[in-house]
């Protein structure tokens, strides 16, 4: 079974400082990895994904993620944090693609609350 782990329940960072939200994965086969963000009383918003190719993936709102196969990690990063980045972040892994439809079930981590302070 595929899984992701987010080892930190909460990450605190000062505005303007770089931020990292950690994620490690366990999959059989190629990993298809995603980051989503959730603001209070809202659904999940897609940030970025890794399917194949460059290990550094760029996404929305200035976020990027670094895929590291040897460490089975997919950490989310941003060079300069904003107070408005404060939210709940989820790492997810997707089932392998199946042509007949379906197969894109997402398995989520438990989430990391990011708090950016002035």
């Amino acid at each position, binding site marked *: 079974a595929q899984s992701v782990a987010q080892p930190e329940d909460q990450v605190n960072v000062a505005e303007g400082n770089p931020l990292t939200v950690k994620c490690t994965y366990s999959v059989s086969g190629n990993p298809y990895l995603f980051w989503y963000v959730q603001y209070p009383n*809202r659904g999940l918003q897609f940030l970025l994904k890794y399917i194949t190719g460059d290990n550094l993936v760029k996404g929305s709102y200035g976020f990027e993620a670094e895929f590291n196969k040897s460490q089975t990690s997919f950490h989310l990063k941003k060079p300069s944090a904003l107070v408005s980045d404060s939210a709940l972040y989820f790492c997810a892994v997707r089932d392998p693609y199946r042509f007949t439809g379906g197969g*894109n079930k*997402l398995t989520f981590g438990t*989430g990391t609350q990011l708090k950016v302070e002035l």
Partner: protein
Amino acid sequence: DAGVTQSPTHLIKTRGQQVTLRCSPKSGHDTVSWYQQALGQGPQFIFQYYEEEERQRGNFPDRFSGHQFPNYSSELNVNALLLGDSALYLCASSLASGSFNEQFFGPGTRLTVL
């Protein structure tokens, strides 16, 4: 272009009752997935519909059932509600074919079971 929409926004039920939640996918999407997000947890996959059939199911009892209509919209039904069914129910839509498309999520329906 409307994104994924869900109704109702909030719902309060009592134990033993039945509930139906509704989802309209993003325009052009043909696959709908449902997730349950309990307080303080990550979303858990319930099931996925494509071509009006359930294609994949997570570890949820048969009390949870669904349907997909020809216009790709979907319903989630939960029978014999338990207190533990209280959660945010998220609908996500995507394209089945093509590249590894991300899922787009709706705002969710907050279900409270008393």
